[in-house]
C-alpha cells in the first residue's frame, strides 16, 4: 500500500459510481480538486490532472466501521491509532469508531479528548465510543454529557457485558436524554459461564467449554425491553445467533430505534472451523453453527440487522500462541472485510453489490448520526474504489495492523479494495 497526498486535481476515470446517499448508480468520472468533490458524471479532466483509471471498478463512499479496537492507550504493542488507521485504509475504511476498553478505559471527557486529538494525526477519521460505566465496572454511569461534548459518539462497555439490568436502565435513560446510542456487549455472564466457543456438538467433541446461544439472545431480549420502556436508542453489536435475530426482528416491528450489526467472521465461518483449535477463531461472541450463520445472512438481506462492523480486535502473537482456553478473544478484521463479506453475500448469496455497499457506508453512518451525501460538490472526499470481482488470497503481507491474528490468512476472498481517498490522502492498495 502506498499513501500519498492528493494532487491538486485527481480524476477518477470511467468507473461505476454508486452513491449510497441518493442510491444513484451511474457510469462516469469523479473530479477531486484540493481534496474536495468538484464534479461527478460525464465531466472532463482539466489539463494537468492526475488520472486514475477506474474501468471495471466501483467508486463509492468511504467505508465506515462502527466497531473496532485500536488498543490505544495502554496496549500499543497490539495496535495504535496510527497502525489501526493504516489497516482501515487497506480495507477501504475512511471512518472508524473505536471502542473504549483501553487501559485506562475511555471513561471520562479527558480520555475522549486524548483520542480526538491524537486522531487528527492519523490518515482517517476516528471517533471514540465512551465507556458506559466508570472503569467499565458496570456500577456507575460515566459523564456522558461532557464526553459527548468532547466527541464521544456512542457509549459501550464492549468486551464486558453490562450485567446489572438496573445500571443498563439508567444508562439507556441517561444516554437517551442526550440522544446517543448505548451499545451493550450482549452476553449473560453467568449463563456464558467459562465458555470459550459456541456450545454445540463441536464443543463437545473438542472438549472445550461451551457458550450457549441463549447467553446472547436472553441478554438482547432484556436490553430490547429496557430500551423500549425508557424510549432510548439501543444498538446491538456483533449479533451472532439465530435466536437473537428472531428477537430483534420481532422487536423492530414495535420499536424502531433499535439497530444492530454483524461481523464478517460470523458471516464467514461456522463452528466446524474450530476443530483445528485455531485461536484466531476464538472470538466473543463465538463463531456459531451453520444455521446461525445462515440466519445472519438472511437478517442482513431482510434488514433485521442494519450493518456490517468488523470488531477488529488485535492481539499479540504470543497471546494467540497459547492453548485455546488461555488465548484472548478477538481477531483483526479491517483488511479482509470487503473481500470476505462480498464473497459471502454477493457471490454466494445473491445480494446486490449496491446493497452490500450500503451495509458498509450509509447504514453504519446513519446509526452514528453522521450520514451525508459524500458526493455533493464541495464535500471533503471520502471515497473507496473497489474491484467487485477480483479473486485474491488474503496473505500476511496484506495486513497493516500491528497484529496478525486473522483466520482469513490463506483464505480466497472475492472483491478487493483498490484505493481509499480521505483527508487529502490517497492510499493505493
Amino acid at each position, binding site marked *: 500500500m502506498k499513501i500519498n497526498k492528493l494532487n491538486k486535481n485527481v480524476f477518477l476515470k470511467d468507473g461505476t459510481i454508486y452513491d449510497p446517499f441518493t442510491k444513484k448508480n451511474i457510469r462516469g468520472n469523479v473530479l477531486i480538486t484540493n481534496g474536495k468533490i468538484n464534479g461527478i458524471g460525464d465531466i472532463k479532466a482539466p489539463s494537468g490532472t492526475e488520472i486514475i483509471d477506474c474501468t471495471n471498478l466501483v467508486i463509492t463512499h468511504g467505508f465506515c466501521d462502527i466497531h473496532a479496537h485500536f488498543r490505544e492507550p495502554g496496549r500499543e504493542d497490539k495496535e495504535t491509532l496510527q497502525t489501526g488507521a493504516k489497516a482501515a485504509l487497506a480495507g477501504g475504511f475512511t471512518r472508524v469508531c473505536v471502542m473504549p476498553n483501553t487501559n485506562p478505559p475511555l471513561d471520562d471527557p479527558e480520555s475522549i479528548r486524548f483520542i480526538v486529538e491524537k486522531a487528527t494525526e492519523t490518515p482517517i477519521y476516528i471517533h471514540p465510543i465512551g465507556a458506559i460505566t466508570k472503569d467499565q465496572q458496570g456500577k456507575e454511569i460515566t459523564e456522558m454529557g461532557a464526553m459527548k461534548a468532547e466527541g464521544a459518539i456512542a457509549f459501550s462497555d464492549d468486551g464486558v457485558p453490562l450485567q446489572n439490568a438496573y445500571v443498563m436502565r439508567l444508562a439507556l435513560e441517561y444516554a437517551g436524554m442526550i440522544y446517543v446510542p448505548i451499545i451493550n456487549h450482549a452476553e449473560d455472564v453467568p449463563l456464558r459461564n467459562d465458555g470459550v466457543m459456541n456450545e*454445540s456438538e463441536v464443543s463437545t467433541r473438542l472438549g472445550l467449554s461451551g457458550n450457549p446461544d441463549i447467553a446472547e439472545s436472553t441478554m438482547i431480549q432484556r436490553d430490547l425491553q429496557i430500551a423500549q420502556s425508557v424510549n432510548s436508542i439501543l444498538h446491538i453489536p456483533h449479533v451472532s445467533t439465530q435466536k437473537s435475530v428472531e428477537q430483534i426482528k420481532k422487536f423492530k416491528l414495535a420499536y424502531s430505534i433499535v439497530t444492530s450489526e454483524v461481523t464478517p467472521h460470523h458471516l464467514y465461518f461456522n463452528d466446524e472451523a474450530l476443530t483445528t483449535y485455531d485461536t484466531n477463531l476464538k472470538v466473543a461472541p463465538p463463531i456459531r453453527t451453520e444455521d446461525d450463520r445462515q440466519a445472519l445472512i438472511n437478517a442482513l438481506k431482510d434488514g433485521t440487522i442494519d450493518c456490517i462492523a468488523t470488531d477488529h480486535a488485535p492481539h499479540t502473537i504470543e497471546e494467540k500462541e497459547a*492453548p485455546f*482456553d488461555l488465548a484472548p478473544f478477538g481477531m483483526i478484521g479491517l483488511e479482509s472485510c470487503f473481500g470476505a463479506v462480498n464473497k459471502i453475500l454477493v457471490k454466494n448469496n445473491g445480494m446486490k453489490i449496491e446493497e452490500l455497499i450500503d451495509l458498509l457506508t450509509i447504514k453504519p453512518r446513519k446509526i452514528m448520526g453522521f450520514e451525508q451525501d459524500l458526493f455533493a460538490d464541495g464535500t471533503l472526499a471520502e471515497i473507496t474504489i473497489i474491484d467487485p470481482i477480483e479473486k485474491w488470497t488474503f496473505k500476511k503481507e496484506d495486513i497493516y495492523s500491528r497484529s496478525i491474528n486473522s483466520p482469513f490468512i490463506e483464505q480466497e476472498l472475492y472483491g478487493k479494495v483498490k484505493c481509499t481517498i480521505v483527508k487529502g490522502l490517497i492510499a493505493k492498495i
Partner: protein
Amino acid sequence: MIKEKHLLGLEGYPAENIETIIDTAFGFREVLERPIKKVPSLQGKTIVNLFYEDSTRTRISFELAQKRLSADTINFSASSSSVKKGESFKDTVQNLEAMKIDAIVMRHPYPGAPLHLTKFVDAVVINAGDGTHEHPTQAILDIMSLKEHFGRIKGLKIGIVGDILHSRVALSNIHGLTSLGAEITLCGPATLIPKDIEKLGVNISYNIDEVMDWADAINVLRIQMERMGVGLFPSTREYRNLFGITHERLERHDKKLVIMHPGPMNRGVEIDSNVADSSQAIILDQVLNGVASRMAILYLLLGGKQEAV
C-alpha cells in the same frame, strides 16, 4: 503398519489402527508375564514424558512401558521446571526438541494442546490426556480389557456412567468403541452430559438400573471433585442414590455385569468398595493392560514392526 504419525485422539482414528495396537499389546502382555519383563525393541530411542498436569497411574504406566521396551526416558513435570519461571509452552517444547528426542508423551490441562505441540516439534506426539478432550491410550486399554474378557468388541453393550462433561476418558471411549462396532449408553446427571453428545452415535439415559439391565459392561467414571465450580449436582449423597454403582444395585441384577473404572476411584461415591473389589471388576486387569497397550503404541509409532515382538 500405522500410517498416522501421532496419537492425539480417537476421533477419526482408523479402527484398524486400534485393532493393530491391541493385537500387538496382547503380545506384550505375554512379555509382562515373563520373569524378565524387558525387550530391546526401542533401544536407543528417547522419549520425554511431558506432564503439565499431575498424574500417577498414567505417568507410571507410560514410564514402565518405556523401560520394558529399553527406551531412554526423561520425566518432566511442569510443577518443578522452567515453566514455573514463566517459560512459554513453545519455548519449552522447542528446547526439548533441540536435544534430539524421538517422542513426547504429553498430559496437559487444556484441550487441543497435543495438536498444538505437533506444530512446534517433529517428534512423535502421544496424548496422555488433554483437559476435557481425549485420553486415547486409556480408551485403548479399556477396549483391550473388554476384548480380553468378551473376545470381541462388535455388538457389545457398554454403559459409561458418571461425569461425562469433564471426562476425556468418556470421549475417547465413545470414539474408539463406536468405530469398532460397540453400542454405548451414557448415564449421569443431566448437568454432567455435554450438549449434543448423542450426535456422536450414543444413547443417553438417566436411569442407572435400566442401563445396568441393558449393558454387558459398565465403565464407571470418577466424579471429578476438583473440576467442579458451581454445584453441577446437589451432593455426593444424591449422586450415589441416583447413579452410584452400589452393591445393592449389582445384587438386583442376575447377570454378571463387568465393572470397569479408569481410576482413581472415589470409593463409596461412584462405586462401592466391595463392587470395586469383587470378581466382576476388571479394574486391575485394566492397569496391567495399560502397560501392555502403551508398550504397543510406543513400539508401533516409533518404527517397530509387529513381527519383531
